[in-house]
């Protein structure tokens, strides 16, 4: 479904602090599976993830989504693809401070401008699904770690994407919440979505529901 061909990402090209974050990676991500990118920090997994999710472009190489080449698309189309296909959660949740849980969850849908009532209903359904119904009006600063994580997941799912991408999702969670998180991932897989995670947490890459682990080291894949 997602295919990477000889993807390379170089930062500060030509300058003294040139960095090859990702070097000639070729990879295929299967649909409706949980794939984990594993490796120490500095191995390029976050960079790779951001390229898969259309947040950055590769310096060279190609990324294809359902056979369609993404690397050459102009920003407008890339963003549209990203919105419709991918949902993101970040290591530090990255919720907008000062706004309510509901407002945060609805944010990614704003550029698509759906009917307001319908959007609210959709957001509420998601919150209910993840046990956050009572917290809808709470400010995100007041949430516990687990609640913030689930809010971030709801936000990632608001546009009903095919693929959920999570960068170091358990970095700020304890082991109980990490297991709970992987349970959620399993549920999403059962619902038909594709999941791509990065982690160096054994709770993640050793979980039963994980279908494939890709190990990265210094920007290259160790086991294909």
């Amino acid at each position: 479904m997602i295919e990477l061909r000889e993807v390379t990402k170089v930062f500060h090209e030509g300058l003294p602090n040139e960095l090859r974050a990702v070097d000639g990676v070729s990879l295929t991500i299967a649909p409706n599976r949980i794939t984990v990118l594993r490796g120490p920090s500095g191995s390029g997994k976050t960079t790779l993830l951001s390229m898969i999710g259309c947040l950055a472009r590769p310096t060279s190489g190609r990324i294809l989504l359902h056979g369609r080449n993404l690397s050459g698309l102009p920003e407008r189309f890339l963003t549209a693809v990203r919105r419709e296909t991918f949902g993101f959660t970040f290591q530090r949740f990255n919720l907008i401070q000062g706004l309510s849980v509901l407002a945060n969850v609805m944010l990614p849908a704003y550029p698509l401008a759906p009917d307001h009532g319908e959007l609210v209903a959709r957001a509420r359904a998601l919150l209910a699904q993840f046990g956050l119904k009572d917290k809808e009006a709470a400010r995100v600063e007041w949430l516990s770690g687990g609640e913030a994580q689930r809010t971030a997941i709801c936000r990632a799912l608001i546009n009903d994407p095919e693929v959920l991408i999570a960068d170091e999702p358990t970095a700020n969670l304890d082991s109980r919440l990490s297991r709970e998180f992987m349970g959620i991932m399993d549920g999403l897989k059962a619902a038909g979505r594709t999941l791509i995670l990065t982690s160096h947490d054994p709770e993640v890459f050793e979980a039963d529901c994980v279908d494939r682990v890709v190990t990265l080291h210094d920007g290259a894949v160790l086991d294909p």
Partner: protein
Amino acid sequence: MTSDPEKTFGSTGPGAPAGGRVPRPSTWPLALLGLGLVLFLGTLGHAAWRGRQPAAAPGAQRELVARLGLSDLALFTEARYTRHLSQADLHSAFQDHPMALDHFPSASLVPPTPISGR
């Protein structure tokens, strides 16, 4: 501004679960701005309408001016030369001595009388 001041309240969809309507942050501010714009246009209209009745408003005043042959407004009654701005002779500001610059506050509001090219 592209916002529509007529649409003031968000709607709630047919399948909305418990919780009811969510107020949109932009509802009241946009409504108030819309009101402000309407009032603004109202002031323009009001001024245009009142301006179209020049005879009605300063009626008593215009009559008095014409009948008495008045030449100045009674705005600055501090001194002779500020009271009749148009009639003041060219030396009035220097009544006391040549270096006596204007010492009334109204001098900062009114420029010297223009003299037609002669």
